[in-house]
């Protein structure tokens, strides 16, 4: 199998002097295409920081990240933004939907920003898969948490990225909805052949993953 994502000696340090925090320390990872990987760890262990760096949202203090052999932080900012929207989809714990546009617009926005035409058949298929076809004209604030997260997942998948990064996507949901969302997410990535890296606290979710990475004090311990 191809390695889709690789990190080398990835470090992130916040603050200076007494306030110095080693959020991520010397992390070397390798993730294969199509893999479903969960990252687990205690609060403040550095897992979110790691995920953000993997997605190019945060700068590492040192070390490199390769996505399909392309060094993410050797790109110019503008290039990285374009690269990110084509290769990486994000799902956040707080959904992060844009409040002023409706569900459909939220889903197709990354494609529009990339200047591509929307593959409507594909997007409608995702929407049906996620069961939000009746909510397309709704504004995000009028949806329940579970519905909002489905929209966020649809948005992440719609632009056909290689990797989906999910930061505790079920953290704000009740357990029933949570199971549904993870199930949908897993099914979708399988269906569309994407790689899924997910942070979670939930042991059950970790168990259905292909692999689980455990982080403690910024270091990968397992």
């Amino acid at each position, binding site marked *: 199998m191809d390695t889709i994502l690789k990190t080398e000696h990835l470090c992130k340090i916040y603050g200076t002097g007494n306030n110095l925090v080693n959020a991520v320390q010397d992390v070397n990872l390798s993730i294969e295409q199509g893999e479903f990987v969960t990252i687990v760890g205690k609060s403040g262990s550095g897992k979110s920081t790691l995920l*953000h760096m993997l*997605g190019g*949202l*945060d*700068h590492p203090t040192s070390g490199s990240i390769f996505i399909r052999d392309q060094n993410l932080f050797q790109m110019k*900012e*503008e290039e990285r*933004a*374009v690269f*990110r*929207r*084509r290769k990486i989809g*994000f799902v*956040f714990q*707080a959904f*992060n*939907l*844009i*409040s*002023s*546009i*409706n569900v*459909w*617009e939220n889903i*197709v*926005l*990354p494609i*529009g*920003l*990339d*200047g591509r*035409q*929307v593959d*409507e058949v594909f997007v409608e298929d995702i929407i049906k898969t996620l069961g939000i076809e009746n909510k397309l*004209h*709704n*504004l995000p*604030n*009028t949806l329940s948490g579970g519905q909002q997260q489905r929209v966020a997942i649809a*948005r992440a998948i719609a*632009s056909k990225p290689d990797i989906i990064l999910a930061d505790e996507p079920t953290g704000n949901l009740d357990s029933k909805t949570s199971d549904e969302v993870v199930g949908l997410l897993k099914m979708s990535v399988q269906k569309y052949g994407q790689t899924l890296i997910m942070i979670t606290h939930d042991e059950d979710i970790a168990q259905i993953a292909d692999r689980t990475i455990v982080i403690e004090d910024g270091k990968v311990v397992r």
Partner: protein
Amino acid sequence: MKTLTAVAIQNNKKNKTRSILIIIAIVLTTILLTIIANYCYGIIKNNREHAGDYYGVYHGMYRSISQEQIEQMELRSEFSKIGRMAYAGEIESERNMALYWVDTVTMQMMNMENLLEKGTMPEKTDEIIANRSFFEQLGIENPQVGDEVTLYSRIDNKSKFSKNKFKISGIIQEQNTQLEQKSYIGYVSQKFYNDQTEEDTRYYNVYFQLNDAVKINYDNAEQFIQELGKKCGIDEKQTIINSYYIMWSTDPGIETIVGGSILILGVVVFSSVVIYNIFQVGIVQKIQEYGKIKALGATKKQLKKIVQTEGIILAFIGVPIGLLLGCIIGNLTFAWIMEQAKMVDSKLEGTTNIVSIPILFIVIIIAFITVRLALEKPMRMVAKASPVEAIRFEGNKNQSVRKGHRHVSVKEMTMANISANKKRTVGTILTMGLSCVLFVVIANFVGNMDAEYSARQNIEYGQIMIDLDYSLSDEAYPENNLDSILKEDPLGEDTIQQIETIDGVTDIRVRKQLAMKTMNEEGKPSDEIFSVMVLNREDFEKYRKDSGIVGDFTYDTVAEENGIIYGYSYFMEDHDYFIGQNLDMRLENGASSCDYNGTIQGAFGNVGSEWVITEETYKQLGLKEGGNGQIWVDCKEEDVESVKEQLEDILLVKDHVEINTYADELQASQLSMKMMRLMCYVLVMIVGLIGFINMANTMIISIITRRREFGMLQAIGMTNSQLNQMLQTEGFLFTIGTVFVSMLIGVPIGYGLFQYGKEHSWMGLYQYHLPWMEIIGMVIVIGILQTILSFILSRNIRKESVISRIQY
């Protein structure tokens, strides 16, 4: 209380951007208030000072009164200053030349001390002072202090002229550079006067100032002074009041104060809305924090107190800065304006210091009131804050679905954003637009001032105008009144013939001017004089097309009925004239006179003469040839100087005439329009700046509050340049909206103001045209400011990493 102040200070520190914006808004507001107040004060102060400069610092004069009567006056406390002037003889000359003695008090009251250019006042019997033209009339070219003068004078008509030798002890400034020398007067010493007269034949003109404690106003001054005279045995016929001085010195400047107050009120309302807006937006954002303070046990009153203290602290920083800057800007511009005004009128003594401490105190109070007004609503809002309330500033609570687009990119995103925040968008566009409305209104007015038109109103034809310089009610020197001047006929046929011989003169036009007197009960003409202009068909119709016409009349209707038209429609009612009123008058043209009976058919807007009759009517009056009031001389532009010089030579021997050239008139009106523009634009620019601060605040707040949203957008693939583009488009839409609002409201108001001004013959308002240049300038400035602001803001926001913005 200390804790609350501390919280307020911390709040201000934490919301640095908001605090800075509010301080700037307060500074600008205070600048504006200070400038307006200082200008009003300066104008009033100047008017008062100039009233003295122009008309003398005295309330009135009693004519030819005796030493005993003066002693009576000195006993009365109503008089604060009494000065004497006496006629010391007539000089043998073709012109009106006379000698007077004045005491130092009168000199002060008549501003003669300031006029003394060189030398000293006459003290010895043989000392004399006068202006250069006086000495030139006596044949002394280039008179100097110490030069000897010989003249023949006599004290009254009964005496013979006797030779007197004088030494020039001082030279007085020429009061006017024009040829309008009214009378030639030399001032001699008291000793000379006493030598000329017997003690029992000494009569004085006594100038006086009334005590400050005497409360008089323009309306009761004459009666009061007459009655005061009677108490000293002085007949009311001997009483002359200095009405212009009384008018200016007793006028508190109501018009200026009212105008200034309206402006200040406008500024207060506008600024408090802006400051309120900045506060409000900031507070909505922080409402949770106020909620927490409330949860900790703060009462409503304490919460209000916090917000009030926040505002007052900022005012304490902003007001002094604004006060200082306002004084500097106000003084500099006012000094510049006075400088310019002096170029037009050399007699003006400019007041450069227009700062008054009491007025500054008032400004401070008004500035604080403005801030306090702005705080009213935020205070109430904070007091209502619920401890658990979590308000998101944005959010479209009322809307649940949106039609949307199938394809979404930057453009759609921007539009969605604007339509989702309609209230905010409309609010910003309105406040920004309204501040530009003022600009558009003023541009409509200032941009339409036509210097050439204004100059042509004064010099109607040709390049040079010669006209009579007359008074209508000079009791002290009746020879200056129109009827007397017409008898002299300085612009008569011989003068015209002389002008015709001047090289370069291409055309001459003449207009007749008559003196009209009311008839008293005995059927005799009274002392009251009016000026009457005789207009031909062309001029009559030209004036008729101007605005401000009252009544329905044409040249023909007026000519047919030998009617009469009033010259200033605006004042018609004030003088109790009405259309259809019959006038029974006596008309004089200097050479002859006749009775006139006619009906008032209407009024012109402003013709520069009280009454107008047609040429037809004039012909029917059957007056002898005479009564030339105005002569226009045309020549090529390059000949103006030489023609003017030759005209001056011809007119040198004529009294009571003045020469004006079109070029000078044009220059003067251009200059005054320049001043007007500067004043207007200084005010408008500051108002615009305050408006811009408001816009900047709305944009900053809207960007700060959307920082997270922008982070989200960037996380899902929006590039920096797309973000920039989005903000620029937003700004562009604000600009368009602003311009639209300002045009929609500003142009009609501006047009209305123009029409109003035209009717009231304001400076050079003639033909309306949309002030495109000014408006384009405004659009460019708003556009540039907007672009810079968007650019800075989007750069600023990019400093943070995407993730820290999302987690914000």
